[in-house]
């Protein structure tokens, strides 16, 4: 495992800037999640690190050496693709053995056998090893493709939304499994997703991307609590952060245009009256959809709240986040 660093990396496709002057260090043993909507440049960053794309500017450093001139094979990275990841003309076993048999690794066959057995055990695919790669369910395919990365011991694992095509239950299981594997191997992992739960639960660091720019990088908790902008605040938290005009409540700092209110920033019982529009009982919690002077606000209440649509509830902000007209955080 190794440290991977991007230094001022820029990549353009025609006139579109996919990655814009990104500087980022993935420390040895870190689990870094890149978070951003489609088109934010997440996948391009993985492809730049793996060597499938060449940056237009900047440097990429793996274990202290610049890898700009190296082929993907020389860079010693493993990558899990979002889809189309298994070689369809091979068995599951041969798929897993493929990277080990490469001219760079040339692993002895008995060691290949041992490693495959090990990884198959962890990913619960031991009974499928002799299947054709095409005779698997979607979840099994994705586990095999994760397995194909895990049989190796590369400088860094790159994963491009590996769980996005799976059903919710499997995704939850594999999320925990991946985190456990990463921790036990001490692996360095760069993981791309647009799923904030994956980001919050697995990451040691989160990088938030906006149109190719790295807008914030830090621990998940820190990014959640201290977002630098409304854009970053929007990326994390369920229900999403509520946006209200700053002048709705007294006490906004000067220059503030928008108040960002997460559910825990909304104190119930005092303040301005809001009308309850809808009550969603989710079992462990209840979501309240409120109407505050014509602005929609979503907050949480306890599971057995007696509130019903049409009721009135007084609310006021508590330790709210304030943003200026451009969306930058000011307090």
């Amino acid at each position, binding site marked *: 495992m190794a440290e991977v660093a991007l230094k001022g990396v820029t990549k353009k496709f025609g006139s579109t800037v996919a990655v814009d002057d990104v500087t980022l260090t993935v420390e040895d043993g870190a689990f870094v999640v890149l978070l951003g909507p489609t088109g934010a440049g997440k996948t391009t960053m993985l492809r730049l690190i*793996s*060597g*499938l794309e060449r940056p237009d500017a900047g440097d990429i450093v793996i274990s202290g050496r610049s890898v700009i001139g190296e*082929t*993907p*094979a020389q860079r010693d*990275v*493993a*990558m899990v*693709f979002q*889809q*189309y*990841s298994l*070689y*369809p*003309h091979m068995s599951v076993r041969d798929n897993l053995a*493929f*990277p080990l048999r*490469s*001219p*760079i*690794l040339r692993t002895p066959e008995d060691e290949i056998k041992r490693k495959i057995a090990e990884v198959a055990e962890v990913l619960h695919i031991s009974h499928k090893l002799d299947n054709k790669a*095409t005779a698997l369910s979607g979840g099994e395919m994705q586990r095999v493709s994760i397995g*194909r990365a895990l049989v190796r011991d590369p400088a860094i694992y790159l994963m491009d939304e590996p769980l996005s095509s799976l059903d919710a239950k499997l995704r939850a299981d594999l999320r925990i499994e991946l985190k456990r594997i990463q921790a036990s191997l001490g692996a360095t992992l760069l993981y791309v997703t647009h799923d904030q739960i994956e980001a919050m639960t697995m990451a040691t660091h989160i990088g938030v991307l906006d149109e190719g720019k790295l807008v914030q990088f830090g621990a998940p908790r820190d990014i959640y609590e201290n977002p630098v902008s409304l854009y970053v605040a929007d990326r994390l938290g369920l229900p999403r952060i509520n946006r209200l005009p700053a002048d709705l409540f007294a006490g906004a700092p000067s220059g503030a245009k928008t108040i960002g209110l997460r559910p825990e920033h909304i104190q119930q019982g005092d303040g301005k009256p809001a009308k309850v529009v809808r009550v969603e009982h989710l079992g462990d919690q209840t979501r309240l959809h409120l109407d505050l002077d014509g602005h929609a606000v979503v907050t949480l209440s306890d599971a057995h709240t007696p509130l019903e649509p049409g009721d009135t509830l007084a609310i006021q902000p508590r330790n709210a986040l304030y943003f200026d007209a451009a969306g930058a955080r000011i307090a």
Partner: protein
Amino acid sequence: MSGYSVTEPSSTQKWVAGVLVIGYALITLMPLLWILATGFKSSADSIAYPPKVTFQPTLEGYVNLFTTQTRQTPEYLDAHPPQTWYEEIVHDKGMVIAGPSRFGERFMNSVIIGFGSTFLSVFLGTLAAYAFSRYRIPLKDDLLFFILSTRMMPPIAVAIPIFLMFRNLGLSDTHTGMILLYTAVNLSLSVWLLKGFIDEIPREYEEAALIDGYTRFQAFTKVVLPQAATGIAATAIFCLIFAWNEYAFAVLLTSGTAQTAPPFIPTIIGNGGQDWPAVAAGATLFLLPVMVFTILLRKHLLRGITFGAVRK
């Protein structure tokens, strides 16, 4: 994959379908059966009217096909009794074998030229198709259109320039010349067909192989080629059928050493009367290689069909 059928067909339906398929097969195979049977008939049986369905099989046609014969006096025939079964067949007609015919050579020419040009067309076609499919090439669309445009007129339309060119280059009546010519004609088809197949193979597979530690060329041979096997097999069959059956250029450009079977077979008719069994024997043997080749590659074709269906 099973489980897609809406209802399992009943046994009656299967019977009806079976009878229809067999009936259709019999009708379409009838000319082939007729050629096969005629090859084993005697000259008299082959032109009998009404046609004979049952007959005494003989290898006379095949012997005539592979040998040249001369008529001899009864005294000579008595003095030289036949040594082998094939000498006996011609002996009964008052003939002796003067030597082998040219059919064997012509057939081998067909094999060399047909398979040689097929191999070359598919080999070059695969490389070109891969490049067109994967790399950014200046004027790509124009180049592809140019390649296709070489097939827009019947090849024979350029017979005269090709004839002159071949004569000046010393390629007339050579194996090399015919292989090059058939390859040139087939290459456009080969590039276009294979490009379609390779386009269907997602790039992610090669990218995965690159990251897994392989070079671009190894990714091509280990990941792209096996998945393009279906397309390569289909293309090879098309190329072989064209090169194997080609008649016009063969007549025009070959006469001796490099003559292929198609222009040769009609000449059999002229050798002393109309020897239909020999012609039928030649046609039967001429059919075999393409048939065997197609059957050998059939597995790839069928696998390709189900393979694509499952993934989509």
